[in-house]
């Protein structure tokens, strides 16, 4: 390659785990790092927004954005990066689907502020002080950023070319994507860069499932002796495997715990939570005559939204206004 392509990284409302995943790659395969110029990486390198403004449109061959979108600064920045980039990759569950931070969409900004700064048991705040957008004291003027009411996945703000799923994405997957970019082997625009099959299809416990899976009860992991060698759903534990894309190497299942769905839905599924709900509806073994028992079992889920949408609440059609989805 004569001219090294320049890539950029940016992070929005993120925990830093996706960055770790990238750093893990950088350690492992230096040849990839050597094959590109890193043009913009606020986490690692100094930059000015002006630097990004100055480069010609489409300058960055590929830009990786992790974290959900929460405030106007992030919105501005990702819109600018969109303009300056050839390809935009949503990296990780937060950028892809809203991630765990988007569980905040179930509550309101006001409730959060009230709790954190007033009601939390360790807070002492008789003066009723809240962080202010603008704080003045004589000549001192300090400003804090302004935030949106909701948490958005990246594709609700800008056009996204590809999605790298996972929370965090396995570094092997990130490495694989880098390879594909360098070799020019990327699939069709809009693809989620992991096989379009369910986690169950690759799960090492899939064989333990009977041909027709039916269950009579739902259990919670901490109250159950879990058999690590038997499909969790079969044991009555909610496992998101049927409604989740494969590609993580069944990490949680190997850890002895059911899947929570961080790889998001399969192609063509508009809403991961509803897809899980539908799957569960099919396997709960109750007839209409057993409505009472059914109610009891369903009641055990306790928190359907937080369970079925652990990583994808921000992308749920309950919230969406523009019909877009990860991987479309």
């Amino acid at each position: 390659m004569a001219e090294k392509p320049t890539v950029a990284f940016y992070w929005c409302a993120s925990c830093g785990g996706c960055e770790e995943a990238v750093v893990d790659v950088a350690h492992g395969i230096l040849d990839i790092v050597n094959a590109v110029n890193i043009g913009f990486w606020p986490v690692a390198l100094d930059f000015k927004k002006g630097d990004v403004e100055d480069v010609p449109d489409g300058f960055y061959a590929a830009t990786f954005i992790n974290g959900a979108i929460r405030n106007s600064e992030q919105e501005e920045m990702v819109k600018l990066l969109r303009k300056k980039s050839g390809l935009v990759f949503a990296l990780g569950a937060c950028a892809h689907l809203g991630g765990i931070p988007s569980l905040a969409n179930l509550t309101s900004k006001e409730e959060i502020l009230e709790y954190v700064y007033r009601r939390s048991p360790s807070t002492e705040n008789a003066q009723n002080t809240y962080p202010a957008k603008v704080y003045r004291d004589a000549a001192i003027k300090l400003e804090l950023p302004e935030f949106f009411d909701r948490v958005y996945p990246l594709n609700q703000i800008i056009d996204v070319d590809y999605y790298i799923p996972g929370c965090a994405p396995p570094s092997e997957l990130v490495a694989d994507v880098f390879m594909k970019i360098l070799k020019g082997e990327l699939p069709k625009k809009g693809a989620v860069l992991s096989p379009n099959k369910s986690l169950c299809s690759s799960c090492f416990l899939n064989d333990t499932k009977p041909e027709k899976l039916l269950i009579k009860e739902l259990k919670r992991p901490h109250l159950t002796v879990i058999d690590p060698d038997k499909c969790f759903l079969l044991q009555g534990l909610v496992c998101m495997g049927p409604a989740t894309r494969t590609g993580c190497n069944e990490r949680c299942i190997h850890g002895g715990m059911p899947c929570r769905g961080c790889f998001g839905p399969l192609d063509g599924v508009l809403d991961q939570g509803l897809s899980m709900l539908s799957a569960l509806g099919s396997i709960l073994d109750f007839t209409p005559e057993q409505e009472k028992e059914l109610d009891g079992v369903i009641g055990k889920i306790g928190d359907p939204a937080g369970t079925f949408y652990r990583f994808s609440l921000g992308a749920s059609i309950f919230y969406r206004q523009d019909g877009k989805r990860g991987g479309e």
Partner: protein
Amino acid sequence: MSQKITIDPITRLEGHGKIEIFLNESGDVDRAFLQIPELRGFEKFCVGRPAEEMARITPRICGVCPTAHHMASTKALDDLYKVSPTPAAKAIRELFYNMFMFEDHLLHFFYLGGPDFVVGPEAPKAERNILGVIGKVGLEVASQLITMRKSVRDLMSEMAGKVIHPVFGLPGGVSKRVTEEQREKIKKVSHQALDFAEFTLKVFDNVVLKNPKYVELVTGDTYKLKTYYMGMVDKTDRVNFYDGDIKIIDPSGKEFGRFKGIGYLDWIGEHVEPWSFIKFPYLKKLGWRGFEDGDNTCLYRVAPMARLNAAIGMATPKAQEAYEWFYQILGEKPVHYTLAYHWARVIEVMQAAEEMVRLSNIPELTDQDIRNIPTETPKEGVGIVEAPRGTLIHHYKSDENGIITEANLIVATVSNSAAISLNIEKAAKNLIKNGNVNDGLLNMVEMAFRPYDPCFGCATHSLPGEMPLTIYLRDPSGNLIREIKRGS
């Protein structure tokens, strides 16, 4: 002072750390502010979630120290359900936790502290990064470091499903056992870890302590801060990361208080300032006294040096040796020199490695009995661990079905937030006189907060080991005089 505000409920880490410095009429520093525009809405949006899921949700507060949150959460769940982990589960958790302390501390020392220490504060800026460290200690060591970290992290993935956001913690135990086969691997890696810890301490001795300029800087006034200290201790009052009492000492070294679990509410208060999303914890019994250090302060500090100060020693022999050397050289206890945090961190690396070796050998590690199933009705629970960056507290309440009704989190870096601000202000006051701004200001100010390994610089985990930072200098009427950016 209460104003209508619109802020982010969830963001952990936002854009740049921002420091605002205001000068007075004569051009000296009036006040300095470190603003981190982050707020964890986690406390609120965890409400309504099943309690047992907290250990899988809260790690997303931070992808740099997810294990600390996972463990604090798991312990809070033990307490919520009043169930103890089985001996095997406790051994597995403790081993896992020490592995995490080891790799996290090590990385920070070499990538972050390293540039200041190993290369030396006087070295040209272009060399004051991980590459400079490599230049000094040799490429082979650098690759050893990478391999070391990788083998520990790979083992952690094997034990807990994932290393970034582990999944195995459950009230009363863990979801995955350790096999004899794994034990052999763990033993091997633990011994390598021990060797590496010894080597790291040697690097510190040879490269850092033999540099009088550096020792002078450490023990100078610029970075000194007199505060209370807080840290976890075991039954014999020695440093522990996973479990024990939280002990507080006053600036003279006398024990000031001690608590466990829910007792934190008697000792810690959190103060709110209108210019920051971070709250400022202080000692409740003293009342909020503002951003002041000294004998009259209400502030306490956490993290490596605070832990060493609060304890009477380390729990393991080699770390204990290093501990004694530390206090002998620095000549005071408690040590108030902020830059000594780096050294304390390396001593903790040693304890973590020694603990890995010890725990990899105990018989119960491979026992199959890894779960006690809770039988009590859940109500309220507190879990506390020592995160690399200090005491970390998770406090949950739930209904009788174990659905969270309230969650309070005191995150390590937050406990140090007032001290970090003070350290920065102090450094700025020392370095800016009569409106003259020393060009080394940026580095010196950075050196003031780096010892804390602040988590808002998750940033700092990346390759060049530099946290993006902007300093704004303003005249008495608030006009911007200068903007200093790293690298510009």
